[in-house]
Each structure stands twice: as C-alpha cells, then as structure tokens.
C-alpha cells in the first residue's frame, strides 16, 4: 500500500494524543498549576486534533469531511470520526473544568478514557477490517495500535509529570512495561506478516483470475503501460533491503533508544528531559513503523498486477 505521509502522521499523532487523553482521564499524575495543566491539555488536544486534521489531507474533498460521521452503523472510518468527536467533546468539557475550576471529574475522565481507547481501536479497525489486506486483518493490529498509543501516552505523561509515580512505580517504568508489551505485540505482528501472504483467504493469481485450474498463471501485460491509481495506491513495491533498514530504524528509535532513555529517567536525573527525548525518539521510530505498516502491506489487487 502507498505509505501516505498524512495517514502515517495521523495514526501516530492521534494515537499519542488519545493515549495521553486516556491517562488524563484515568487521573494519571499531571503537572500542577495553570501553566502545567494548560501544557498537558494543550499537548493532548493538539496531538489528537493535529492527527485528525492531518487525516483530512488524505481526502480528495476535505471540505466534505463532515459527511464522514453519518455511517457509523457500518463504517469503521465513520465510527472513528464519531468516537473522536465525542471523545474530544468530553475532553473539552473535562479540560474546561480542570483548567478553569481545577476539577478533574473522575466519571467524565473515565468516559473520556473509554472514548480514547475506542477511538484508537476504531482507527486500527479501519485497517484491521480489510479482508483484502491479510497482513492487517488480525486482532494484533488494534492491539499494536492500542499498545503504542498507550506507550506514547505514558512517555508523554511521564515527561509532563516529571515521571510521576503511580502504584509505586514511576511513569517511566510503566512506560517501559508498556513499550515492551507493544513491541512484543509488534514482533508477533511482523512475524505473522512475514508469512501470511494471502493465506487467510487463500487468494492467488489463480483465484483472482479463475484460471488457476488450467495451469500456472502469471501476468503477461498490464492493462496500461503506465502507472495508474491502483498501482500507485495498492501495488506499492518496496525493496527488501530498504524495508530491513527501516525496521532497524523503527526498533532502534521506537524501542531500544526510548527504553534506554526511560531507564535513565528512572534514575531520577532530569527525568523530564530524558522522557522528552524518549518521546521524540519513540515518535520517530513509530513513524518508521507506520511507514512499513503501509508500505509492506500486500493488497489483493496486486494479484492482478
């Protein structure tokens, strides 16, 4: 699949925003004082909204984006939109109360947290629902999205709260646990993706053309000699070397370096700085991870090309 920058940015950033929102809703330690609260709220809101705005750059007609909330009964994309809006509205009320009246409503927060989880889950389901892309069609896809969202949220929360302690553990350690979980899930995802091909459906050039019963089928000529929407969008080819390099970057920046930085943060020396660096590294790593999520995905249409 074509790795569109807007969509990569959307999934990572809004994941971070809603991850943070989830933790805010749970009452995770946050900075004190007007400015601190403002920064926390602004960061969560900005990331979530920036992600959503970015996703509209992917649209041919962003001016009609408002129409996308209508089909929540059948469409995960619509659900995602609806959930994001509801969650953001809850967040708006929550933020208003917190900022102006210093009230962190537990009930409202819980709703907001549930909304955040649901939104990220819906985002992931946009991809995980597609039977045409077996690599994506697995419970691991939402699991990864949720785990990375949570990890991003934790790293950011730790950064904001100066590595605040919950349940006796500093946030950096929570984040470390989360990042391990996320990458275990991602490794499972990659492991599955490496061998899945079209085995979930059994689709092949033979079944795509119906000619498999005659003999070995291969493409002779494309319908047009140039590229078209389908080849650009769904028959994206990525070199193995290129992919391996990007995986190293994803793991290095998205797992190893953040863990190291979080362990440094756990030592208590300038944890905010280390966690901020960890957040940036993680974001960069996840951009690479998400780029690969799209670029390596094989669509059934590629069987025709």
């Amino acid at each position, binding site marked *: 699949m074509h790795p569109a920058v807007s969509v990569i940015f959307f999934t990572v950033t809004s994941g971070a925003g809603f991850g943070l929102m989830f933790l805010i809703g749970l009452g995770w330690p946050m900075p004190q004082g007007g400015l601190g609260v403002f920064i926390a709220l602004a960061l969560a809101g900005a990331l979530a909204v920036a992600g959503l705005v970015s996703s509209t750059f992917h649209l041919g007609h962003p001016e009609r984006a408002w129409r996308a909330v209508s089909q929540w009964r059948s469409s995960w994309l619509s659900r995602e939109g609806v959930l994001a809006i509801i969650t953001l509205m809850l967040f708006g009320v929550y933020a208003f109360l917190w900022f102006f009246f210093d009230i962190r409503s537990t009930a409202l927060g819980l709703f907001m947290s549930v909304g955040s989880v649901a939104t990220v889950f819906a985002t992931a389901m946009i991809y995980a629902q597609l039977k045409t892309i077996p690599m994506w069609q697995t419970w691991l896809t939402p699991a990864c999205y949720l785990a990375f969202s949570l990890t991003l949220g934790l790293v950011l929360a730790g950064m904001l709260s100066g590595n605040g302690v919950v349940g006796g553990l500093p946030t950096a350690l929570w984040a470390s646990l989360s990042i391990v979980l996320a990458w275990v899930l991602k490794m499972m995802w990659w492991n599955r993706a490496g061998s899945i091909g079209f085995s979930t459906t059994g689709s092949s050039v033979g079944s795509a053309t119906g000619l498999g019963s005659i003999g070995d089928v291969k493409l*002779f000529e494309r*319908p*047009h*000699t*140039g590229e078209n929407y389908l080849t650009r969008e769904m028959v994206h080819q990525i070199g193995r070397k290129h992919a391996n390099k990007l995986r190293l970057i994803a793991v290095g920046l998205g797992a190893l370096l953040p863990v190291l930085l979080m362990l440094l943060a756990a030592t208590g020396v300038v944890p905010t700085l280390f966690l901020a660096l960890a957040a940036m590294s993680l974001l960069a790593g996840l951009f690479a991870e998400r780029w690969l999520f799209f670029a390596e995905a094989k669509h059934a249409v590629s069987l025709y090309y």
Partner: protein
Amino acid sequence: MNDHVRVDTSPHVSDEVQKTTCYMCACRCGINVHLRDDGTGTKKIRYIEGNNDHPVNRGVLCAKGSAGIMQHYSPARLRKPLKRVGERGEGKFEEIEWDEALEIATGWLGDVRKDDPKKLAFFTGRDQSQSFTGWWAQQFGTPNFAAHGGFCSVNMAAAGIYTFGGAFWEFGSPDWKHTELFMLFGVAEDHDSNPIKLGLAELKRRGKKTIAINPVRTGYNAVADEWVGITPGTDGLFVLALVHELLKAGKVDVDYLLRYTNAPWLVIDAPGTADHGLFARDADGNALVLDRESKKAIPYNGKGVKPDLRGEIQLDNGLTARPAFRLLTDKYLDGQYAPEMVSERTGVSADQIRSIAAQLAEAAFEKEIVIERAWTDMKGERHEKMIGRPVAMHAMRGISAHSNGFQTCRSIHLLQILLGSIDCPGGFRYKPPYPRPVHAQPAPHGGGEAGKPLAGPQLGFMRGPQGLLLEEDGVTPQRIDKAYSWDAPMSSHGLMHMVIANAHARDPYGVDVLFMYMANMSWNSSMNTSGVMKMLTDKDENGDYVIPKIIYSDAYSSEMVAFADLVFPDTTYLERHDAISMLDRPISEPEGVADAIRWPVLEPDRDVRGFQSVLVDLGARLGLPGMTNEDGSQKFKDYADYIQKHQRKPGIGPLMGWRGEDGSKTGRGEPNPEQIDRYIENGGFSLTHVPDEAMYYKFANKAWQDFATEMGLQDGPVECVFQLYLEPMAQFRLCAQGLAEPKTPDTHKQRILDCFDPLPDWYAPFEGEGIEASEYPFHALTQRPAAMYHSWGSQNAWLRQIHGHNPMFVPADICDAVGLETGDWAWVSSHHGKIKVPVKRMDAVNGKTIWTWNAIGKRKGAWALSDGAPEAEKGFLLNHLIHELLPPKEDGMRWSNSDPITGQAAWFDLRVNIEKAEAGEAESLPQFPAQDGPVPDGDGPLRYGAAWLKEFMTR
C-alpha cells in the same frame, strides 16, 4: 435517502447524431457521432459509437474508433500550410497562406510536368482515395504513382487476384455463418478488424473450430481453439505438407477442380523450347484439355468436354502435354513435403500437421453443406443446390511480409481450391466487386510524356514479360520504384519502400519533386528508418538536397512533416469528404454491394483543407485534363463536387448509390447533384443486396454475372477460371532461360528460375539465406496492437495510456540461454543495425521468435508529445534493424529486401541476435535529436466532458 432520486437514469445524451465512416484504421466502420453544445454555442463530440445498421461493423466499435474524440481534438493537429525555414528534419517552419502554398506547389509541379513528368514521384500512404489520387497522377502524366500497398500486403492481393480473382485483405470474408473449420494465418489486428472479431464471435457461438497459425499466441490467436506456433517464413512449407497429406489420401474435390480451375489444362512439356511450361492452346488462344472420351486435346470450354486430370497426350505439333493437375500431384506428393520432412523447419510437429490435414478433410467432405437453392453456371448448366465445403481461411501480414509471401499465399489458395472451398457455402467468399481476375483488371502503364496524361493507370496486373515497364534497353526500369521491372515483375501495388532509396541513389534516375500523403516515411512506414532520414537530408556537391523538393500532406505533426519543404495541413476524419468507392476499396460484404462516404460532421476550426480538395485545386491550377473546364477554370469546386460529378466511364462514378438525376438508379446512372445528401440520409453508406441465386459460386454464377453487369461492376460476363498453374510465371522462366523475349539480364536469371515456379512453391526467405544463421539465429517480428493503429495512436491521450511503450517479448528458452529477465535491457542486432530495448519474458510464442508491438516508438518532438514521453524514451522501432536491401552477395550485388515476384517489402524476414545490455540508462536506442514541432506540445490535465457537468461537483 431514496435511491431513485440519486441518479438521473435518463439524461439527455446529445443534440444531434451524425452518421459517417470511421477512419481510425482501414476497417471503415460506420459510426454515429453524437454532437452536443458545450454551453458556449460550440458543437462538441459527446460520444462516438458503432452504427447498428452498417454492413461492416453492425454497431460495434473497436478501441481506436472509440478513441476518435481524442484524435479529433489532438493538439498535434496542423493548423496552417507550412513552409520550411530550417534544415530538413529539424521541423522549423513558418506558417503561410493557402494561396502561397498552392502557388509554390503549382510552380514546382508545373515545371516538372512541362519538362519530364516522371520527375514527380507521387506516393500516398494510408488514405482511402487511391482511385482519385491515381487518376490525378495519371492526368499529370507521371508513371511514378503508387499507394503504400508495396510495403503493406501486396502479396496477398496479387496472389489472390492471380489465383482466383479475389483476395484476402478486406476483399473477401469467411462464410462465418456456415463454416465448420476456420484457419487463420498470420493475422494480428489488420484490415477488416471488426468483421473478423464479429466472425470469430459467431464461430464461438456456433461452437466451430478455429486453428490459428502464428508464431505469437496473442489476440485472435489466443482465442483460437488450436494454435500452430509456426516459425516465421515457413507457412508455405506447412501448407504444402497439408496439400501433400490431402493428395495422398485423395481428399480433394475433383468435380470442383474440373469445373472451375485450370487443373485439367494441358501444360506443354518441352524443356529447352520456348513452349515449355506454357498451356497448349488452340488457334484462338483457348487452353486445351485432354478429353477423356475422345482422347483428344480440345478447348477447355468446349461443349460436353470431359477433361482428364492425369493422362498425357502428344499434341499436333509433336510436343507432349499433361494436365496441370498431373504436374501438381507429381510435385506435392514428393517426399520433401511429407510432414516429418518439414517439421523441424516449420517448428510444427508431424502429428499436428497430419491432425490438421485430417480435420480439413473431415470438415470439407464429411460435413458438406447443402443449401437448397438452384443456380445456373456461366455455361448454362443448372444446379439444383449449392454444395458447400465448409472450410474457411483467412491470411494476412504474417504471410505477406516475407520474400516468399506471394508463393506462400498462392499455396494457401491452392489448399482452399483443392478442398473446393472458394466462394461456396462455408468457404471463403468474395466481396463485390470481386471476383475480378487478372484479365478483368487494368494492365500497368508506364511512359510519361511532357505535358501529357498517361495512357492508362499506373498500377495494374502484369500479364506477362511483354508488358514489363522497361526502357528500350530491356533492363532499365521505367518507374522510380522499379515496379514491373525485373526486380519485381508482377508488382501490383508499386514499391513505396524503395522510392526514397532509389531517388536518393538516382537509380534509375533522380526525381525533382517527392509528393507524399499520409505516409510516415521518416519513421515507422520505412525500413531502415535512420537511413531514410539521412537520404531525405543528404545534399549533393552543390549543397542542394539530393531529393530537391518534398511536398507532404498530413493532418498531424508526424515525424515526416519535419522533412518536408512544403506541408499541406489536412483535416481530421470528421471534417472531410471521402468516397469509400467501388472504384477502389468499397465496404461490400459477401451478400451486399456497398460503398460509403465521409462528410464533415464538424467544420474545421483551423486553416486546413482536405487533401483531395487540395489536389482538385492543384489539378486545375496545373491545367490537368479532367480537372479543368474548357475556359481553363476549375472543374470541380472541391473533392465532394468531384465525388458527385466525376464519371470514370459514362454512368459510372465514385459512388454507386442514388445515381441518376433523380437519385433513382443504383450502380449505373448519370451524376446526381444531391447524391451525398442521399448518403448522409442513409447513414453514410449505400447497400444493395446480392440476389439469392448469386450469393455463392460468383466466379461461375450467371446470376452474379448479370447482377454485376447491371450494377456496373463489370461491363459483361467475366470468366474466372482458378489458376492453380500460373502461366505468366512460366513465361518469366522462359525469359530467364533466354528462350523468350524480353531476355532477363544475367543478374536476375537465377532468381527468376528459383522463385517463379508456376505452381505454388516454397523457398527459404532471403534474409535468412544471406546471413550466417549462427550469427543471427532468431526471427524478429512486430504485431499491430488491437488498440493502436500505426503511429496515429501515439498522439491519442487515451490510446497512449494503453500502449505508451513497447517491450521486446523474448521466448523463455532464449531468455534462459542468453541470461535475460523481464526488466532487463538488451541489444538486438541484425546484419544492418543494432537497437537497445527493454525485455519481457514470454512463453506463448514460437521458441525462435522475438517480437514487439508495432510503431509505438516515436521520435522526440513529434506528435505534440513531451520530449520525455515514454514512446520516445522507452518505445522503439524494429524498423532500424531492417534494411531496404539484402546483405551483399558474393558479387557485391545487393537486392531489394522484397519478394522477387511482387516487390512486397519483406520486413518479416528479419533475422537477429539478442544479448543482454550492460546496466545503464533506461532509454531505448537509437535516439535522435528532438524535432521542432509546428504545433506546441499538448498540455493537461484533460477533463473531457467537463463542459456537460451540471450539478455534479458543485454542491
């Protein structure tokens, strides 16, 4: 939301529908052109579809026809007459007014006509107005006229006319409704493209079998039920092996042979005399046969004659003679034609050859068709029914474009005739005006006197050596292309591919003006493209161009435009008048006599004129007879006026429908000033059904003869005896043996002895014989893609997306041997040149044959395309590998790369080697400097139809 209101299911389509004839290829389909106001008061094309009532396409339309909108609005359209200002080939022009352009041309042509008319070489390309352009050239007085048949498929036309007075091409058609078995030789997309597709569909519907003989298994060959992946140039051998099998088994239609062919005619056996190989004839010139009852030689057409096919007789003059059929059986029963003997060479297994022979016999003789319809033959004998041998064949380019193409095509006709399957139910049928055998065709005319018209048409069918167009010395050709000389004695269409080379070499002489129309000679319509570009730009010691003046007419900024000194901008096919005429190549179908017109369904928005109207104007300016009134004024206002008023013979004009002053006559009749209007009212064509009794056996059918005479297709009955044994070939052999006049020059003797077998024969293609097979072990071919027609398609915004560049398809075996993979680049070399091409591996192809799509490659700067267009960057032409001359013989002599009988360009003889190219720039080679265009490059994006977008996209 209610679904019903979401879409308008009955929208307005168009304001008017105009019916004319397509011109996106040579198929001549009827089209409905839907026109609609674009909101600014301008009529635009909304849609082009097939005309349901049209005899050619019956409502269907191919990709090319459907892309007509893009052709019509192409940015490559020329806009005004052009005068060259740069060097030839650069494409630098100034736009001039029509008056100036016509005055320049009149000056040049007037001088030529006054001094030596043959110094004008007038050759037209893919136009469909040769009866007019030929007539114009005849009035001008130059012998140097032809259309492009010589490098197209003259072998098919000539072999057909000489053998049975008809031809493949679009001049005949399989009897799709009745045939049981169809054989298709060497056809990718070609003439008659939609009728063939419709016919194949009919066979599929009826569950009848198609056998395709073609090295490449694409297109029609892909859907055929059985594929014969033959090695190029060996079809004749394959066919003669089938003949061998059929003769051996006695599976031939003896009655048919006796009645309708020259199989019983007596051939004199007297080696070393001037009679050897000729027919024994009576004093009136009637061929003799051996009567089985009287055992005497009597005229074949005598009453009650019962000819023998096998005996021998001593004639009154003491010479021995045998029926042609006896010679024929002796020849083809020889073991050299046995399936196992031809198998290796043809690449076809002996089993498959035998199986196909058996299928042919079964279809012809076990599945005989009987139509209960009485008919009377030309001898007056009444037949109660029409008997059909339902085997149909069609063949084209893959047969034609070889140096053995004439004989190969004759071999196919021999096979058809032995089976009794020409123009019978289920067989191959003539389309009117055919049958028209050689003696009913014009003979070619040469000469050319200053200021005078030629005595007759330049092109025709050579009767024998006496008619050759030679100078007094009996050697030097009269024509610039050397047609009808010893080089190509039975040329019927001229040799367009030799014109520029000969004019450049001043052999046999130089020309002053080269005048061409719709012929992309500096690109895909020539062999040796780079060489031709050089010939067109070469200068002599005085610094003048070797070919002094070039006038060219084209509608588009083609590669050839860049090499012209003066350019007449032509119209598009929707802006012009044309006659698809019975005098030329009408649109008849076997059951209907039909011709058609084109007419301007849109007015040009540029300062352009239909080329034929320009010729009418030039003709008057030059004072040519037939084009000028007595007072010297212009006789025809334009081409449309000519179409309606011109009479070739009294009562016979370009169009056959609605003749007579009131439009009540068909075929014969006085000119009708409203004739074109009547055609327009009728959908652009005229169709008259052939009477039931005349439907089959037209070559011998009295009802057909009466009908054809009444319709003006012929002036009286025309006897058509199939010439299995072709006597003129024997005459040429006698000349080569020095036994008859004119004597063949030494240089040509052996070749005529080798190739002019009066019976269909096979010899190895010349190019393969002239090179080391190990050096160039492979064959290389092109095929026309169904969605693109020559270079015209490359400017078409839609078609060029389908074929924007072309790979070289290489069989898996060659890939493995040479180390090639899809995506690699390779060097392909011939005895003449080397090209660098992208490679695509393929399995469904003859293992010794590489191939590509034809004419996709473009020169940079042409056709209003960007310089980086894929056609120029990656596309390529095979033409660079093909020389117009063969490799030199030991004596240094270089023959034309043509069929020695007709002069047909032998581009499919090409032999090549292929090797992997080192990694480098992904660009095909050779490349040429970009030509300047007289029109700006096209731009985009294109939103065709946006004019009619109403509420969509605005809410």
